[in-house]
């Protein structure tokens, strides 16, 4: 989320600074701090030194002046006493001493001192004025010739004034000396404290620089470290390892790009995983369907796959029958044993089949819901319908219902679409195969197995040592029926014989169209005589059926042989064929049981066999003629 400049905190602003600018600002700040500290130290020490120098110099000058004042006072007193005691003498020395004293006093005032010093100077000044006044009185006494008065004034009033003045001058000198010594001590103390302050400021500056360096390093290194750690975790496969960096600097933008990359990788991984799951399920379903060699098993697989793909749904597979116009419920999956029960009648009435793709409905009560869903009379629900096609032709639909407004995920719809495609392909293929096999193994007109399949089946019976009786049948004068009533009537005659025969057979018995109007039967676990009873029943049934139909009456001849007694299957066929010819020869509409000859080499064949051989010799291709339309005996 973009943060406006006004809303950003100072910390965020600092974090958002580019790394280069952070470094520049940081080190510029450090340099500035260092320069300021050094400058402050230099300035402070310089000013302190100058101030201390002035203080010390002032104190020394004051002490010197005060000492000069004290000396001048002493000289003044000495000069005054000299001219008083040695009167009449000159006052030159006294006047010079007075000038010196006044000069010293003036120097003290000029140089300045503290308030106590000023008070002392004031006091000295008044004392000096009194001293000069008494000196004037002394001078007058001397002039008037009264040396005793002058002497007494010198020892009295003037001595008093001088004493106070001298005492104060001495005090001032002592104070000045003390002040000088104090200034020196304070200078030393201040210098020491300045050094300590310098050291402290240096330490603080060093600390501040270290702190600033640490902060700058932290600002730059920590986000980079977080990005590095996130990248390492991502490299190890953890795509959730996003870099926790919020700044807007280079590192922050790197982290955002990294997180975006991770997000896309996660999305891609999720897509790949979903695709992988879909392919895995699809592969599993494909393998299961591959193993299903008939439609019921395939439908069972579809049911299981539906339950796995949509566990929270009630689903069903509606498949069209052979007419491709009626949809019937083929598979049910889910919690409802009856399935959703879509009432759609034909594929062409289904919205999903018409659209050719998956269709979803959020609510059965919605305006745009499928009519078959809305009018079903159940609680409101959601639905998804996926058409099932094979080679572009609709053959059904997968229909699933869930709770109302239950949103089907893309993965679920993809799974259903894949399942529908696989189911359509497999079921369509199985149906095609079944149809092809039926076409290859049955006679298209009568629905009976053809000769090749029959031979395969009876070979199988011989391999398993299953006793059976082989019967060959041929419709009598069938060519005549065809020629007289037409092929359509002939075909109906064939179908009628088939229907009558099949009605009399057990489930273990076999019947095939051998060719033309000739048929073959295999009766398991029966004796030839018992077989002939069955044959006779068929003949009777046929006669009864024909008596009530519009077909012309026709009969059938049968040749019977115990196949398990024959040396080979070819022998059995040949003997049954011979018996059939025998039946034809005996007037047709009967059944003849062939005698099975011994299979010892050199043994002469039975008369029946000879007849058959004879017939074959007079009419080559007997067996071939049996496949044809004509009755060989009728010729």
């Amino acid at each position, binding site marked *: 989320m973009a943060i406006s400049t006004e809303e950003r905190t100072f910390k965020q602003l600092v974090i958002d600074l580019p790394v280069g600018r952070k470094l520049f600002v940081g080190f510029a700040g450090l340099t500035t701090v260092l320069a300021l500290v050094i400058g402050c130290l230099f300035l402070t020490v310089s000013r302190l030194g100058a101030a201390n120098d002035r203080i010390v110099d002032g104190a020394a000058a004051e002490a010197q002046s005060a000492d000069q004042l004290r000396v001048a006072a002493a000289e003044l007193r000495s000069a005054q006493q000299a001219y008083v005691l040695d009167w009449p003498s000159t006052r030159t020395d006294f006047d010079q001493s007075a000038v010196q004293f006044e000069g010293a006093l003036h120097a003290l005032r000029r140089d300045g001192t503290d308030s106590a010093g000023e008070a002392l100077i004031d*006091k000295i000044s008044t004392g000096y*004025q*009194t001293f000069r006044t008494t000196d004037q009185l002394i001078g007058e006494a001397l002039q008037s010739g009264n040396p005793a008065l002058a002497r007494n*004034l010198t020892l*009295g009033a003037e001595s*008093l004034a001088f004493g106070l003045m001298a005492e104060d001058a001495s005090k001032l000198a002592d104070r000045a000396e003390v002040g000088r010594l104090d200034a020196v001590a304070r200078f030393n103390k201040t210098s020491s404290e*300045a050094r300590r302050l310098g050291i*402290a400021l240096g330490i603080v500056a060093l600390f501040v620089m270290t702190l600033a360096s640490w902060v700058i390093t932290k600002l730059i290194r920590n986000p980079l470290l977080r990005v590095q750690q996130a990248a390492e975790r991502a490299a190890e496969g953890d795509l959730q390892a996003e870099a926790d960096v919020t700044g807007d600097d280079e590192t922050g933008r790197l982290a955002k790009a990294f997180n975006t990359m991770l997000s896309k990788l996660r999305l891609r991984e999720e897509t790949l995983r979903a695709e992988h799951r879909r392919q895995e399920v699809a592969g599993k379903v494909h393998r299961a369907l591959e193993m299903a060699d008939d439609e019921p098993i395939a439908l069972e697989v579809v049911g299981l796959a539906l339950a796995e793909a949509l566990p929270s749904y009630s689903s069903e597979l509606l498949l069209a029958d052979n007419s491709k116009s009626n949809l019937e419920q083929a598979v049910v999956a889910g919690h409802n044993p009856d399935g959703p029960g879509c009432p759609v009648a034909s594929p062409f009435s289904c919205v999903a089949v018409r659209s050719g793709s998956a269709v979803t409905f959020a609510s059965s009560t919605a305006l745009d819901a499928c009519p078959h869903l809305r009018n079903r009379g159940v609680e409101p629900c959601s639905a998804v319908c996926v058409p099932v096609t094979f080679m572009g032709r609709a053959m059904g639909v997968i229909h699933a219902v869930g709770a109302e407004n239950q949103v089907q995920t893309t993965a679920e719809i993809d799974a259903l679409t894949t399942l529908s495609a696989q189911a359509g392909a497999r079921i369509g293929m199985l149906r095609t195969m079944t149809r092809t096999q039926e076409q290859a193994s049955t006679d298209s007109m009568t629905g009976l197995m053809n000769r090749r399949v029959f031979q395969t089946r009876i070979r199988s019976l011989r391999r398993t040592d299953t006793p059976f009786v082989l019967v060959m049948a041929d419709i009598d004068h069938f060519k005549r029926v065809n020629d007289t009533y037409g092929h359509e009537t002939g075909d109906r005659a064939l179908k009628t014989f088939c229907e009558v025969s099949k009605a009399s057979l057990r489930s273990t018995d076999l019947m095939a169209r051998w060719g033309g109007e000739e048929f073959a039967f295999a009766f398991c676990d029966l004796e030839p005589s018992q077989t002939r009873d069955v044959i006779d029943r068929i003949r009777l049934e046929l006669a009864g059926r024909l008596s009530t139909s519009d077909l012309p009456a026709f009969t059938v001849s049968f040749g019977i042989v115990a196949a398990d007694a024959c040396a080979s299957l070819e022998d059995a066929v040949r003997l049954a064929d011979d018996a059939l010819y025998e039946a034809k020869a005996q007037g047709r509409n009967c059944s003849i049981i062939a005698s099975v000859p011994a299979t010892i080499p050199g043994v002469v064949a039975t008369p029946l066999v000879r007849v058959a051989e004879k017939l074959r010799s007079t009419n080559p291709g007997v067996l071939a003629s049996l496949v044809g339309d004509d009755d060989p005996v009728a010729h």
Partner: protein
Amino acid sequence: MTIQRVRFIASPPARKRFIVALMLMGLVASSSACRLVDGDKGISDTTADQEVAKVAGWTRIATTEKYLVVANVLPGEVMFTTAEADAQNPTEGELIIRGIGNPVGDHVRHVEAHIYDRTTGLPRSDVTTSILLLNRTTGEREIVAATLMQDINTGALDIHYGNNIAVRSNSDLRLIVTVDGEEVTLDGHLD
């Protein structure tokens, strides 16, 4: 403030130590700087006043028809009776010859007047003396008890009248001394 305290309490021990060390270093640095800045002051104003009081004063001389008067306003001096002087043997102060002496204290000054005979130049202790102190700055008037005394060290040459009396600093003073009916006025500034 509360938030800062809570943050400080919630911070790790290392960070607490770091913050405390930072604060101590700042305290030491600022303390040193303050001491350097305040170093010139050294003595407070009150101390300076006391120093001034110890030394402030003035000396004035005036004459009457018969007398020479030297008046001094000095820092307060301890005044001893003879008995006290004998008992304590002080090295400085005033020895009371006649009268009573006031004690020293804050703002107490020693106001004295030396009376000399104009004809002989000798100090007089047998005259009738009164001393009136007029503070021209405040307008206050005080009579200074004219106790006869002399400096313990100097002796009789220093005999004079006066006493200890409280006088405010930085005042313009006027002493009116009457000696046997002759009056002199002496002005001076007391620092």
